[in-house]
């Protein structure tokens, strides 16, 4: 598969529709991250964790409307793995003198992982979402996580029009918001935040 095609498939696919892509990324590039981590004081468990975090971040990058890959996927994943492993070593207060196991020539911004940190309120809301019914969970996941358009959601999830899918999403949001606002902790949190 051409690399641009790979990005397009990630951009428009759900997690499960992209399973083959994740598998081929794993087969083609995991070894590179593994060597990097093992050569720099890491374990196999570290290598697995770093590679998976990189793949998750790569999936989200691909979903960004303006994302264009300006280098090879291998270079990009190597640079991301390197950044992520450096970050982990620093967190562990280890002296960092990175030995590179591949050449790379791009800089990846350091804050790519920030949006994978969640507050206790967000984790509590996730519990409510899980109990919001399959239909709501599916449409909200497609919209907010997979970043699919309402048109695509309508096609994939069997709504007869984009408008009907949108109405369904609005109903689901209303339901979730009502459940969220039943939670005293969350209400207090909003008050503290001056909302």
């Amino acid at each position, binding site marked *: 598969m051409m690399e641009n095609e790979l990005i397009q498939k990630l951009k428009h696919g759900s997690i499960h529709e992209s399973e083959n892509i994740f598998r081929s990324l794993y087969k083609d590039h995991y070894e590179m991250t593994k060597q990097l981590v093992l050569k720099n004081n890491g374990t196999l468990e570290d290598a697995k964790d770093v590679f*998976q975090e990189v793949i998750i971040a790569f999936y989200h990058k691909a979903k960004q409307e303006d994302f264009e890959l300006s280098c090879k996927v291998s270079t990009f994943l190597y640079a991301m793995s390197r950044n992520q492993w450096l970050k982990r070593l620093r967190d562990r207060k280890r002296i960092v003198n990175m030995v590179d196991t591949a050449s790379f020539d791009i800089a990846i911004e350091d804050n790519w992982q920030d949006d994978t940190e969640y507050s206790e309120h967000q984790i509590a809301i996730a519990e409510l979402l899980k109990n919001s019914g399959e239909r709501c969970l599916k449409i909200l996941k497609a919209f907010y996580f997979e970043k699919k358009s309402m048109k695509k959601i309508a096609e994939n999830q069997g709504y007869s029009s984009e408008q009907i899918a949108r109405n369904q999403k609005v109903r689901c949001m209303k339901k979730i918001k009502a459940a969220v606002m039943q939670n005293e902790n969350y209400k207090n949190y909003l008050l503290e935040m001056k909302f």
Partner: protein
Amino acid sequence: MTKEQIDILLDKYVNNTLSAKEEIQFNEILDNIPELKRDLKIRQDIAQSMNYLGNKELKNLLDKIHLEEFGNEQVDLTPKSKNWIIYLIGGIILLGILGVFLLNTNTQSAESQSPENLYAEYFEPFVPSSQTRGENAEKILETFYEAYQDKNYAKALNVIKPILNEQENQVLLLASISAIQSDNHNLAQKLLDQILDSKDYYFTDHANWYKALSFLKQEKNKEAKDLLEELSQDSDADHHLEAKKLMEKI
């Protein structure tokens, strides 16, 4: 601007897809209708919670791929030059064991596949997420995980039993697998039902799969088949393919 247009604009902000022109509109609206800030904050938290669930699901998928493609990598197998003779001897012994294994497998394939054989063929212990094995894990859980990973299921079960009531679904699943392997099927079914009752969809398919294996091990083929049927009909389900294949063999 209609309510629906505002809704779309807020969603575009949350999904980071506002155009420059829309960004101006968005800022104007927030200035004019300050109460929208609260709605926006809730919306952002819901979107981020969805992200949390999605990432968890993706991590589970990656764990599955890792396991299928690389198995349980545990050690660095790069041989050091002075140890080559040890690796050579080890290799010869392994080849011998493999030969005996293949011979046995061929003999077995001629026999009819009993539920016991099918159970042994399809049972693979669930691999827990590494995130729950952090440094802050309580001692008892650490011992439990260690025993589980060493496949010492009887020990794992004994260790976890006194604190089972306080555990989350992942631990309940591992405990139920330990119970199945220790032939304590009543406890296994109870724990698996508890997981299913919690409607935690990350664990539902796993719970059904191991419940089916538990029935199979007890030679309750009909009950096993009923559960496998559900998994085999849902192409998105975990263990979907295994369930399909196993159905054909029972």
